């Protein structure tokens, strides 16, 4: 039986549904909020961000459940580099509509930008629960998980990113490094090859390939090939940090400790806090019968080793005992002492959340801020010197 009325009714229903879908639901029956919102949008289009933000704030005060206004506000604040306010708006959206696609990912990135790494990590994890392929959240996890004592999570994130964004050389470089670090040489090989194809001018490609060769081919020919790669890396980037260390290692393997020392001593100056250089130095001095120097290098190595072990042990425990204020405080202060500022910040942040107002933590924060500023200045100075040396503006 034909029903001639059916088609027009369906069309009407569809039209209503579309209207409800497209129009922000809370504007229904709230014209003042809508007017303010439109004024704000017009101001934003003119480039008057302050007016836009003021109008949107007024609009959202009238219509506090409107996620569209909160979203515009968050974008506006981000554009103004007012990340704390942007976070406030994003958190509101997450509260009103927790299923909003990408909301936790946005929060993760915002938190990361204000150095609240723990919160960033948690938001990224929430986003990934809904969308396991959410690349920005994977990026956040890759950036933070390692320092939270969750190496497995970092590896999985990088592995996924290397598939989702195969041409992204930054992620690829991180992935190559992590695979090499974990001795997963067979998996590292194709990634390194891809990296070298994508970034033939980068000295990192030669370094990765050299490291892989050092691990997998211990023959004299393999050593020679690795030497060539590290020399190439030094040509591409004379200040590169790793080639000299590896050249030192290779010459040790070839039982030429005198030659190894030439590289290792320079590497030690480049990276005085890197313990494996001190370890190799101690061995090289011992092989050349320079007992005192060997003992000094070993002492330096041991001190660095002890620091790292203590820090890693504390961080592992923090991962297990999330409510332990004393542990987070101890870890934060220790990380600050040994110069691991990122870890210090994560732990101090968490401790502060657990128990606000602790005077020792306040002092530690002040110290951290000062030392980070000093470090930043130093880095800028070094960068400027390098640019000058290379004749760059």
């Amino acid at each position: 039986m034909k029903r001639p009325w059916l088609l027009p009714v369906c069309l009407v229903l569809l039209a209503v549904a579309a209207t409800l879908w497209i129009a922000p639901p809370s504007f229904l029956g709230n014209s003042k909020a809508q007017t303010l919102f439109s004024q704000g949008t017009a101001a934003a289009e003119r480039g008057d961000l302050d007016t836009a933000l003021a109008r949107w704030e007024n609009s959202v005060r009238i219509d506090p459940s409107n996620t569209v206004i909160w979203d515009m506000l968050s974008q506006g604040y981000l554009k103004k580099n007012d990340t704390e306010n942007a976070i406030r708006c994003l958190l509101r959206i997450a509260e009103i509509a927790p299923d909003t696609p990408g909301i936790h990912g946005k929060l993760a990135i915002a938190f990361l930008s204000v150095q609240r790494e723990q919160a960033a990590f948690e938001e990224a994890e929430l986003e990934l629960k809904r969308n396991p392929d959410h690349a920005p959240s994977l990026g956040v996890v890759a950036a933070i998980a390692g320092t939270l004592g969750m190496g497995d999570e970092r590896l999985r994130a990088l592995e996924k990113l290397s598939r989702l964004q195969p041409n992204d050389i930054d992620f690829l470089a991180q992935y190559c490094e992590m695979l090499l670090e974990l001795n997963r040489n067979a998996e590292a090989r194709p990634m390194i090859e891809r990296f070298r194809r994508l970034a033939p001018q980068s000295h990192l490609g030669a370094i990765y390939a050299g490291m892989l060769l050092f691990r997998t081919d211990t023959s004299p020919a393999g050593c020679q090939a690795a030497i060539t790669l590290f020399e190439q890396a030094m040509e591409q980037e004379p200040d590169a940090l790793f080639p000299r260390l590896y050249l030192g290692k290779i010459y040790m393997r070839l039982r030429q400790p005198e030659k190894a020392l030439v590289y290792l001593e320079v590497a030690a100056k480049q990276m005085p806090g890197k313990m494996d250089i001190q370890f190799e130095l101690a061995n090289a001095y011992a092989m050349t019968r320079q007992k005192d120097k060997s003992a000094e290098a070993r002492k330096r190595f041991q001190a660095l080793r002890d620091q790292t072990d203590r820090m890693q042990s504390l961080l592992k425990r923090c991962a297990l005992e999330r409510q332990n204020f004393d542990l987070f405080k101890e870890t934060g202060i220790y990380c600050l002492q040994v110069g691991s500022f990122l870890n210090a910040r994560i732990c101090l942040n968490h401790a502060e959340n657990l128990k606000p107002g602790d005077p020792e933590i306040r002092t530690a924060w002040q110290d951290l801020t000062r030392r980070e500023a000093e470090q930043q200045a130093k880095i800028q100075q070094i960068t400027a010197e390098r640019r000058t040396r290379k004749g760059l503006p």
Partner: protein
Amino acid sequence: MRIICAFRRVIFPCAIVLCAIVLCAILGLSGCSRSLPTSNHVSISSSPSKKSNASLFEDVAQKSGLVFSCDTGIAYRKRYFIESAAAGGGFIDFDNDGYLDIFLTQCGAPSPELLKGNRPHCALFRNRGGTFTEATSGSGFDKDLGYVYGIAVGDYDNDGYDDIFLTSYPHNWLFHNEHGTGKFTDVTNKLGLGKTHSTGFATSAAFGDYDGDGKLDLYICYYAPWTPATDKPCVNFEHERDYCTPEVYDPETHQLFHNEGATFRNVSDASGISRVKGRGLAVAFVDFNEDGKPDIFVANDLTPNMLWKNNGDGTFENVAAEAGCGYAENGSLMAGMGIAIADYDRSEHPSLFVTSFAGMPNTLFRNIGEGQFENVADTSRIAPAHLKYLSFGCEFLDFDGDGWQDLLTANGHVQLRVNLKESFGVEQPKRLYRNNGDGSFASIESPEALGDLATPVISRGLAIGDFDNDGFVDAMAMNQNSPVQLFRNRTGEMALKNPSLPRPHTIAFHLIGVKSNRDGCHARLRLKDSLGVVHTDWVRAGSSYLSASDRRVYFGLGAASGACSLEIRWQSGVTEKLSGLEPDRLYAVTEGKGITENHPFRDPSLMR
């Protein structure tokens, strides 16, 4: 390792980059009464399940009557840390009949409070010439001994019979062998070993005579201060409760006991041993600098290995870092699990092999003389071939009798779930490495050749010993929640079956100390075969993991079929020279008296 700044891709790079840069910057023994085998009676049946003509080892546990499984308490679902590393055992000829008997440790409930009903017992098996019958009942081991971990075997009172020390939670145990009757008496408290525990749990232990007074002392490894109440909850990547990684537990001090005859005295403080803490898993006495004073090497889990140099005055000094065996490549920590010691390169120096975690290379520390080691894990080709395996027990053994010490490891993961890209799996096969004779090893990959070694299980302890006295060293693996494996070495049998292959010759020595400790521990044997090749070995005092291996010393001679000569340097300083030693025999040598017994090895053709 951070070569680039890791966080660059994620918005607002500057501050983060800064931090990453900072991260970069920090970042018969007994006894003369012991007799050697005189019978060729063997009743091991043929046709093993996985045996092919090419298989080098065959698991004969079940068919020879060795039926036992170590219950780690996994069914209690507590995932207590202590469960992850259990399952030990070893060879001990407790009745001095010349055949190696077997002791296996048992665990059960990881906490006394969880115990429902009776705890399963450890087991003692008597070797009746190649087959085993259980002899636990009435032995003294048929009671609740707690959560038993490891075993050390030694004749601590020099009465000619091997005694048994067990590490266990919450108490260790020392059992005196009542003269081979099959009964053992608990002498733990009587001899002053009742207070060995702090708050931690002990793992491996070893007997050795560090001061040369002729009495065996005792080193006990401790892992961490741990009780069921302080166990920490951890989860794996599937968010399931799983065993924790070591860093969440503090390391513990180890203990050294001096044998004073009537008692053992705790000399941990006086000797200096307690100065350094480590998550100890394996221990062996080894005279690494060849000064005649046994030193002690300890493999620690994510804490530096210890090499306790014996100062000769009752004190020790940890020289692992200076000697080059404290760390793995790059100065990274090892997850040191097991120890094997041998002169694998015919340098006449004892080198050290240490097993490690999956993804972390096992390490071979080659002894280059003058008390120095070099890490040759890469150049020996052991490290790359082993990265997907998590190894515990390990031993050097010349399985093919060619005169070069090969290497066997027992493997199995500690966690319930693993990433298959970084690990073979939770259950893992054994790994066998053939010594190429040029400083390198080749892993034997063929499942046909490996035979039953290729069966994946969760192994922990590994002991070696020629249980059938055929002249070829066999092996036993202690597994978690699955049957113990007894691997008969088929080299002799295979050579008989294939006359086109020359049968390799072997020769073995059972040392009986008189002035030195009766076990002959620490004696150095230097054998010159009929082709002029010099082989060096030592009477073992600890090795592997939670295990006790055959103390008899076996030399593979390959094609050298003529008479050998032997120089023994006993711990007492006595040097003995013997000549005209025919191969394919087992010799008992008593300190100062020369050969006191010798017998041909049993005919391998009868052992099927």
